[in-house]
């Protein structure tokens, strides 16, 4: 059952081949078997999942879009009555008093919630090694990272522990783990999916999105979660496309641009070969491929590591030991309450980013750092807009390497940051991006990223879907998890 795609599972459920309770129980068994080796989950909710599965099975008419489908959710989405930790000691005792809009929408779509997945603390990281609850492991090689920050959600799909999952992406945190884990992951346009109830890291960059075995599976989740939400004032009032219904529309003639800046000398030869082969496949499918330029791409990492920490320093100021979360023991005075509660409960990367952010926003430095970064952000965005006058999609590797070893990059923050090179500009520009598996390099998955203009997720899904109709990289699973 776990080797069927979500789309196939929906058909099987409708045909009565198995029930949601059976499917859910099957995933529950798999999660239990693999939790120790993978550490993909922080909170596992089997009883609740089975209750929801039973309700789904009892619905005979008017079955909603994802009726009975078991999902995993990154532990960044507030789930009412269920621990929501953001992988931090700061929220180890936090039982969310309300549901995120994404959670509500998935419930309304009839989905079943298996539990909350592990991640980098407060979504800050590219390896899922900074969690208060321990590292997440890559099912393709347990000595390697699954990527981050949505590592647990990526692993849940890669190891077939759930039909699909939700993650979040601020600098690449859906696309990069999708690439490292050999699955499909989509970051929607900024404002496409509501951020209400999604613990904020960098408010102008954060976006929730799906992981799935296939682009079609991602289309189902996007269909269920996209849409304007009055409770998120940054969500855009733009009609939601029929992503699943339109996924088979013709892609012939679509123009794909390869930024010359991303295909230079330093690119790993094996990864390059896989991308080239994928491009050949896309040409066979009728796409036109041409070189383009994103002249300011090289500044994206620098701009991001000013903007995101600045925004995080503001967002994380709400964690003060007063209204929720961790409080230090015996605070001497108010200043002590704040500084000790925060220092005792935030991990090192979180504290680093808060400090960088506070510096970048402080008097005397605001112009040189934050304001300059926001101007560079506009230049990067304009580069993409110019590219989209010539092409429909911008294509590149998702990551410069395959999954690296655990602990390989933890000592030098900058080495970790550099792995975001292809994904990060996309968040700065607020564009939608997808990563799909296109092969293996030394037995580790290689991901390819496609980016389109605002609200053109359907273009990405259609191309990815056609590619997946003619290749089977996306159906591969690590041997131990078959």
């Amino acid at each position, binding site marked *: 059952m776990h080797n069927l795609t979500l789309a196939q599972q929906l058909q099987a459920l409708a045909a009565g081949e198995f029930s949601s309770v059976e499917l859910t129980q099957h995933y529950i068994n798999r999660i239990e078997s693999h939790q120790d080796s993978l550490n993909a989950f922080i909170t596992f909710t089997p009883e609740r999942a089975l209750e929801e599965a039973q309700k789904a099975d009892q619905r005979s008419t008017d079955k909603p879009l994802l009726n009975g489908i078991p999902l995993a959710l990154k532990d960044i989405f507030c789930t009412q009555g269920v621990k929501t930790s953001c992988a931090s000691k700061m929220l180890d*005792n936090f*039982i969310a*008093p309300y549901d995120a809009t994404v959670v509500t929408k998935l419930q309304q779509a009839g989905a079943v919630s298996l539990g909350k997945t592990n991640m980098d603390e407060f979504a800050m990281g590219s390896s899922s090694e900074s969690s208060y609850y321990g590292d997440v492991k890559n099912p393709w090689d347990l000595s390697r990272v699954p990527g981050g920050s949505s590592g647990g959600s990526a692993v849940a799909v890669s190891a077939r522990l759930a039909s699909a999952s939700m993650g979040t992406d601020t600098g690449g945190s859906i696309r990069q783990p999708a690439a490292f884990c050999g699955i499909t992951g989509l970051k929607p*346009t*900024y*404002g496409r999916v509501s951020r209400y109830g999604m613990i904020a890291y960098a408010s*102008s960059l954060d976006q929730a999105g799906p992981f799935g075995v296939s682009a079609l599976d991602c289309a189902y989740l996007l269909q269920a979660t996209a849409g304007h939400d*009055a409770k998120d*004032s*940054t969500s*855009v009032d733009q009609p939601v496309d029929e992503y699943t219904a339109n996924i088979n529309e013709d892609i012939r003639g679509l123009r794909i641009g390869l930024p010359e800046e991303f295909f230079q000398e330093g690119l790993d030869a094996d990864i390059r070969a896989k991308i080239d082969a994928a491009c050949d496949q896309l040409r066979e499918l009728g796409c036109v491929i041409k070189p383009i330029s994103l002249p*300011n791409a090289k*500044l994206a990492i*620098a*701009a991001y*590591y*000013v903007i995101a920490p600045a925004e995080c*320093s503001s967002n994380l*100021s709400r964690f003060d*030991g*007063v*209204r*929720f*979360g961790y*409080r230090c023991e015996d605070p*001497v*005075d*108010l*200043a*002590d*309450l*704040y*500084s*000790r509660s*925060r*220092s005792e409960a935030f991990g090192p990367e979180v504290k*680093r980013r808060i*400090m*960088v*952010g*506070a*510096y970048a926003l402080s008097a005397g430095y605001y112009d040189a*750092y934050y*304001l*300059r*970064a*926001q*101007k*560079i*952000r*506009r*230049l990067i*965005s304009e580069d993409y807009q110019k590219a989209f006058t010539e092409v429909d999609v911008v294509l590149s590797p998702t990551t410069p390497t395959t999954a690296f070893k655990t602990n390989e990059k933890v000592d030098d*923050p*900058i080495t970790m*940051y550099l792995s975001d090179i292809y994904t990060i500009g996309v968040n700065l*520009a*607020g*564009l939608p991006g997808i990563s799909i598996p296109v092969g293996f390099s030394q037995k580790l998955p290689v991901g390819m990223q496609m980016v389109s203009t*605002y609200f053109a997720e359907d273009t990405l899904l259609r191309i990815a879907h056609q590619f997946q109709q003619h290749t089977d990289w996306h159906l591969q699973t690590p041997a131990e998890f078959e």
Partner: protein
Amino acid sequence: MALTTAEILNIAKLARLHVEESELADYQQDLSAILGFVEQMEQVNVDGVEPMAHPQDMSQSLREDVVTESDQRERFQSIAPATANGLYLVPKVIE
């Protein structure tokens, strides 16, 4: 961009974080490295470029000035570390 310990302690104060003596050197090294790295931003000319705060330059959407929330204080305070009489308790502030 080498930060002094005084600067580190000042940033920590702004961020309401406590930095131990033993941690100072590491913070100095890491933060100096990160700030040095982002100095690449100097490479490009940004004269006349408008800063971008929102990807689609959206501005705050407004709504009617009517009450839409209900009083849920008990529910939201039930998860607080310390409360009394509907108030959050903190160490004494006023001398």
